[in-house]
């Protein structure tokens, strides 16, 4: 039974009627569709395909204190409805981000949701401090869950105490105007306990999910395909896992804002995340397939909400639980 049939919401015939504005915790955004960290670099390459100021935000590739070369190639393997990557957080470091990428986004009126990463708690805190008051920065996504770090399997997001330590330090150091979202790994036994731990430590919201750790072996060489051996699995293949994580966490912590991601390719995919409890979504690997996907997913989601009689995106958040 649809919301309209239940008489819960008014009927709106066109997507133009749907109020798509939402927020990342206390930071308002005009669209619930964002890019995903690591899938759109720092936004510049999408300019020919997407109005960067119209989407919710550009979630940057994770930045660290120092420039990083990333891992040797091969870095990528296509998998059924997905891909495995082992990039190793190649990037310019915080100095390059502050000098080049963030001013570029600010000049275009794009909101930057800056993903930060590090190997020690104080690295994350220093990054958060360096981003205080920077024009165009909407908030921070704390990447405590990248599988392609030196100590694989020992990511912060797999340990509730370590995850909470990072988040508490970031919240303490960050600009009070910047919401702090913790990005969680699905590679845990109980994601709700991690979610509870980081929100108790001061996370204003949760980004779910990062990639799943995976492996592909080349049957011809009989060796792992990726230079980094294992890699992060992304794309529509992981969508049901991501949706399950969002569902479980929203059920346990219904007042915690969730930025949902994991295999979103269409407006109906995004709708599933919204219904499960996400108040915004990131479009990641789909951008490799379709560089205009963030704008397309926004339009398709608006249409899907209108067809189901929702006047506001917010009315659909968590609807599947009710």
């Amino acid at each position, binding site marked *: 039974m649809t919301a309209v049939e239940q008489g819960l919401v008014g009927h709106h015939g066109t997507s133009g009627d749907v109020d798509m504005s939402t927020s990342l915790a206390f930071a308002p955004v005009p669209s619930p569709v964002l890019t995903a960290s690591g899938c759109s670099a720092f936004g510049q390459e999408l300019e020919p395909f997407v109005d960067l100021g119209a989407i919710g935000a550009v979630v940057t590739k994770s930045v660290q204190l120092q420039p990083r070369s*990333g891992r040797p190639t091969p870095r990528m393997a296509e998998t059924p409805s997905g891909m495995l990557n082992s990039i190793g957080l190649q990037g310019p470091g915080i100095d390059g981000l502050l000098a080049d990428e963030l001013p570029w986004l600010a000049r275009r009126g794009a909101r930057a949701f800056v993903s930060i990463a590090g190997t020690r708690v104080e690295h994350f805190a220093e990054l958060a401090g360096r981003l205080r008051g920077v024009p165009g920065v909407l908030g921070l996504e704390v990447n405590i869950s990248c599988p392609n770090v030196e100590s694989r399997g020992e990511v912060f997001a797999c340990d509730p105490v370590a995850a909470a330590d990072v988040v508490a330090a970031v919240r303490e150091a960050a600009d009070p105007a910047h919401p702090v979202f913790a990005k969680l790994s699905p590679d845990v036994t109980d994601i709700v306990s991690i979610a509870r731990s980081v929100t108790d430590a001061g996370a204003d919201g949760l980004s779910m999910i990062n990639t799943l750790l995976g492996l592909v072996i080349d049957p011809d060489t009989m060796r792992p395909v990726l230079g980094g051996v294992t890699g992060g699995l992304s794309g529509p293949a992981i969508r049901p896992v991501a949706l399950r994580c969002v569902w479980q966490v929203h059920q346990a912590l219904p007042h915690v804002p969730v930025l949902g991601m994991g295999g979103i390719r269409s407006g109906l995919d995004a709708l599933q995340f919204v219904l499960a409890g996400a108040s915004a979504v990131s479009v990641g690997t789909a951008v490799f397939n379709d*560089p205009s996907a963030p704008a397309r997913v926004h339009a398709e989601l608006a249409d899907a909400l209108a067809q189901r009689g929702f006047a506001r995106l917010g009315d659909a958040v968590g609807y599947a639980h009710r």
Partner: protein
Amino acid sequence: MTELKGHVGQHGPYLTEPAPPAEHAPVQRVVEVLATRPVGAYVELTFAAPEIAERAVPGQFAAFAIGGRESAMLLRRSIAIAGTADGRVTVVVAPHGPGSTWLAGLQPGATVDVVGPLGRPFPLPGPGTPALLVGGGYGAAALVGLAGALRAQGSDVAAVAGAASADRLCSVDDLTALAGVTVMTDDGSAGRRGWVTDAVAEQVGGVGVVYACGPMGMLRAVAELATAAGVPSYVAVEESMACGIGVCMTCVLPVVGADGRTRFSRSCTEGPVFGGDRVRFADVGTLTADVVGAAAMGVVA
């Protein structure tokens, strides 16, 4: 297209300058297949794509989505643009996996989502500079437009087209219309028996610039011959790319920049055309301590 500025000895130890970016931004369009034609082991596809055709310059490529919106193959296939006439874009597809096989099987009237033109074009030398073009397998297709551009500015153009066997040669007729062509095959089934490098070694001394497109091993050998002869070379690489537009960071190679420092550079946006003496072919697939950012990966000298 920008003029090649490098001259021997003028810019430190390198004979080339990094290729500058293209003038025009790419577009994304759903385009129709107009014609399809088998070319030996390959398939030549022609699309109605006027906005891509009018923007494209030699050396650039297009990135094709595979299998429609619900496809389980998410990654685009990046293929060199072989021709752009009358609002049409032509590419030569080598079917070797499920994605390229799908693309090669498209029939006239079918539509496909394509992004292009992408990547940095071949820099052109000063007017009249004699040029040698070297194509391996279907890589020769990427050189046809370049041969035309060089001829238009008064350059003598020689070309070497090579492959394992006759059925894996490509674009020989198109190149022959524009250049003196030497054909080389490993098995002698067409042209001379031998490797393209045999012919390059004979001809490199008489030209002012070398361009190459083909497999990595061939590019390395051609670039090394050119550099040893003091001739600048530009290579168009065929790295596998997930996106083609510069966001996925999977197609990187160790390349020496204008500042003399080596970076993991994206083949799609910093390439696919690189100075042949700037690609560190021997270090592909490894991370050496002098790559910018290697220290943060725990790799130190």
